[in-house]
C-alpha cells in the first residue's frame, strides 16, 4: 500500500523515515509481545511456571524505541519488562518461552535466572540481573568502549522510575554527561514501583534530572509510539554525532500487578487500572495502519493465527525442553579454559 510523492509525505511514519514495512512490523511485534505476555500469565496461573513479570501496556513504546536503534551496531541493556524490546531486537518467542520455563536451551541464562532477565550476545543484548539500575553504568561502559574504539555504536539502557532513584542512575548519567558518551537512558515511568506510587518515589520529573548532568532530557507520552520513535531517533543521531547522552522518560502505566506474586488491589483501585487499560496504544496503532491502508481485518486475523501458532509451538517446545543438567549447574563460575589459553 506504499504510495509515492505527496501522499507519503503526509503520513506520520513516513515523515519519521519509517517505511510501510517497518511500521507494519512494529505493529506485529507489539501484538506478538502482548500475546506472549498474556500466555505467560496464563501459564503461571495454570501452575506450569512459577513466575512471570509482565510488560503489558508498555509494548508500543518499547517497540518504538527499539526501531530507532541499529540492531547491527548498538548495544542493548533492557530491563525485565522489555519483552517487546527484545523481540524487536531479534529474540524469538521460543527463546522467551525457554526462559519462562527455565530450560537449559534458554539463551539468556540456560534457565538460571528469572524470566525477564535478558542477555544474549548474539543479539547485542547485555546480560542483566535483578538488583535494579546496575545496568546503567554498564551501558555507559559500553558507550565508553565505543568511543575508545571509534565505533559508531550507541547503547540504550532501560529502567523503571523507581529504579531511577538508585545511586547508580546518578553516577552513570553524570559519568556519561562528562564524557559526552553515546548512550540513551530510558526511564519507563509506569507509575508504580511495586506498591509505591510515583508520588512517593520522587517529587520531581525524572526527565528534568538530565539538566544537572548537562544533557537533554525529554518526557514523552508512551501511548504515542510515533512520538517515542521520533525522540529516540533524535537521541540516536545526537549520540552518533558525538553530542552525548539523552535521558528519555517514557510515561506509561503498569496495568498488571508488579509480578505474578503481587496483589495490586492492596494498594490501588480497579478503576484506576481500568482507566489506564483503556488507553492501550495497540488498537490505536492498528487503526492508524488501517487508515493508511496498511492493515485490514484479514491481515489481523492472519497475524493472530500466526502468532497463536508460534506461541503454541514455543510453549510446547519450552515445556518439553530439558532443564540444564544438574552436573552443569555449577559450571562457569570462572572461565573453564585457563587464563593462559584464553589470552
Amino acid at each position: 500500500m506504499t504510495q509515492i510523492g505527496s501522499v507519503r509525505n503526509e503520513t506520520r511514519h513516513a515523515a519519521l523515515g519509517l517505511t510501510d514495512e517497518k511500521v507494519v512490523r512494529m505493529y506485529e511485534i507489539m501484538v506478538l509481545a502482548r500475546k506472549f505476555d498474556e500466555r505467560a500469565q496464563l501459564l503461571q496461573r495454570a501452575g506450569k511456571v512459577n513466575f512471570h513479570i509482565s510488560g503489558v501496556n508498555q509494548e508500543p513504546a518499547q517497540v518504538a524505541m527499539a526501531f530507532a536503534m541499529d540492531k547491527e551496531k548498538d548495544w542493548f541493556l533492557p530491563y525485565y519488562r522489555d519483552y517487546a524490546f527484545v523481540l524487536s531486537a531479534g529474540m524469538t518467542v521460543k527463546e522467551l518461552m525457554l526462559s519462562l520455563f527455565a530450560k537449559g536451551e534458554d539463551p539468556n541464562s540456560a534457565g538460571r535466572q528469572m524470566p525477564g532477565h535478558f542477555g544474549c550476545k548474539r543479539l547485542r543484548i547485555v546480560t542483566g540481573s535483578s538488583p535494579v539500575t546496575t545496568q546503567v553504568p554498564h551501558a555507559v561502559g559500553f558507550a565508553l568502549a565505543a568511543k575508545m574504539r571509534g565505533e559508531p555504536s550507541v547503547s540504550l539502557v532501560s529502567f523503571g522510575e523507581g529504579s531511577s532513584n538508585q545511586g547508580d542512575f546518578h553516577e552513570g548519567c553524570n559519568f556519561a554527561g562528562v564524557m559526552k558518551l553515546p548512550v540513551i537512558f530510558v526511564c519507563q515511568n509506569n507509575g508504580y514501583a511495586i506498591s509505591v506510587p510515583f508520588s512517593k518515589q520522587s517529587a520531581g520529573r525524572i526527565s528534568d534530572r538530565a539538566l544537572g548532568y548537562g544533557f537533554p532530557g525529554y518526557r514523552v507520552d508512551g501511548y504515542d509510539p510515533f512520538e517515542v520513535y521520533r525522540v529516540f531517533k533524535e537521541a540516536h543521531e545526537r549520540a552518533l554525532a558525538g553530542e552525548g547522552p539523552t535521558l528519555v522518560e517514557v510515561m506509561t502505566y503498569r496495568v498488571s500487578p508488579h509480578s505474578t506474586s503481587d496483589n495490586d488491589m492492596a494498594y490501588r483501585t480497579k478503576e484506576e487500572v481500568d482507566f489506564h487499560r483503556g488507553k492501550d496504544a495497540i488498537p490505536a496503532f492498528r487503526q492508524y495502519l488501517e487508515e493508511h491502508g496498511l492493515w485490514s481485518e484479514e491481515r489481523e486475523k492472519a497475524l493472530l493465527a500466526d502468532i497463536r501458532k508460534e506461541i503454541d509451538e514455543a510453549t510446547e517446545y519450552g515445556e518439553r525442553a530439558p532443564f540444564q543438567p544438574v552436573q552443569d549447574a555449577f559450571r562457569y563460575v570462572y572461565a573453564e579454559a585457563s587464563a593462559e589459553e584464553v589470552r
Partner: protein
Amino acid sequence: MPVIEYIEAIRTAMKEEMERDERVFVMGEDVGLKGGVFGATKGLQQQFGELRSLDTPLAESAIAGVAIGAAMAGMRPIAEMQYSDFMFPATNQIISEAAKIRYRSNNDWDCPLVIRAPIGGGVFGGLYHSQCPESVFFGTPGLKIVAPATAYDAKGLLLAAIRDPDPVLFFENKKCYRLIADEVPEGDYTVPIGKSNVMREGSDITVIGYSMPLHFAMQAAEELSREEGIEAHILDLRTIQPLDREGILEAAARTGKVLIVHEDNKTGGVGAEVAAIISEELLYDLDAPIRRLCGPDVPAMPINPPGEKHFMLNKDKLKAAMLDLARF
C-alpha cells in the same frame, strides 16, 4: 503458649515494640500499604500511620543512610531490605558508617539501628532472590548479626535487636517465614544477643549452625536416632556476630566430632570462623576433622527446580553428612 509462624513472630515483635516505644519505626520499600513483599509489616501502617511504617523510594543506600541519621538523632529505626540480595548498595553505609559511628566518635555518638533482611533460597527466586550475604558483613567489628531459626528466637532476638544500643543486622530466613512455627510467648521477652542455644542434646556428633539448615539437621537427627541410634548434639548459634565462643567450644567438646552447616557458601563463611575457633582452642579434644556442609562455592542458586534442589541443603544431605561423621 500459642504456636505462631516465624514471620508472624517478626511482625508481632515490631508491632509490640512500636506500641511500647514511640521512637521505633519501620522503613523500607513497600512496607506501608502492601505490608512488605512477604507481609512482615502487614497492618503496621494502618495502626501507626504513614510515617512510622514508611514507604521509601527504591534506594537501599538511602534506606540505610537515612535510618542511620535517624538513629543518631535518637530514633530507633528498623530498616527493611526487601531481599538481602538487595542490601549490597547499602554496604558502604553499613560498614563505613553504622559499624564505626560509636568507635570513631569515641562514644560520643551511637547508632541503635536494626536492618532486617530476608536470606536464603528454596523459593524459586533464582540468583538474586536466594542469597545468603552473611560473609560480606561478618567480620566487620561494630556490627552485631543475628539469624534466628525459630519463631521464638525471631521475636525475642528482634526485640533485643531493637533495644540494642548498637547496629544489628537481622537476617531472617524467607523459607522459615511460613514453614516454621513454634511456641511464642505473648508480650515482652528478649533472647540475648550473643548467646547460642542447644536445640538438641546428644553425645555422638555435634552439629553447629544457624537459620534454616538447622531444621534439616533436627529432622535428620531424629531419623538417625531412630534408625541408627546416633545421637546428635545440635547447637543453634542464633547470633553470628559476636559468636558465642563458650557455647561453641562446649558443644564441640561434648562429642569431639563437629559438623558445621550453613546455606551461605562454604569458603569464607561463618563456618570457617567456627572451625578456626575450635581448632584454636580444642584441637586435642577432637576425634574427627572439623567438617563443613554448606552452600557450594557458586555465585548463587539457579531458578530452575533441579538446579535449585541440587544447590540447596536438605534433610537428606544433612543426614548423609551426619552419618558419615558419626561413623568416622
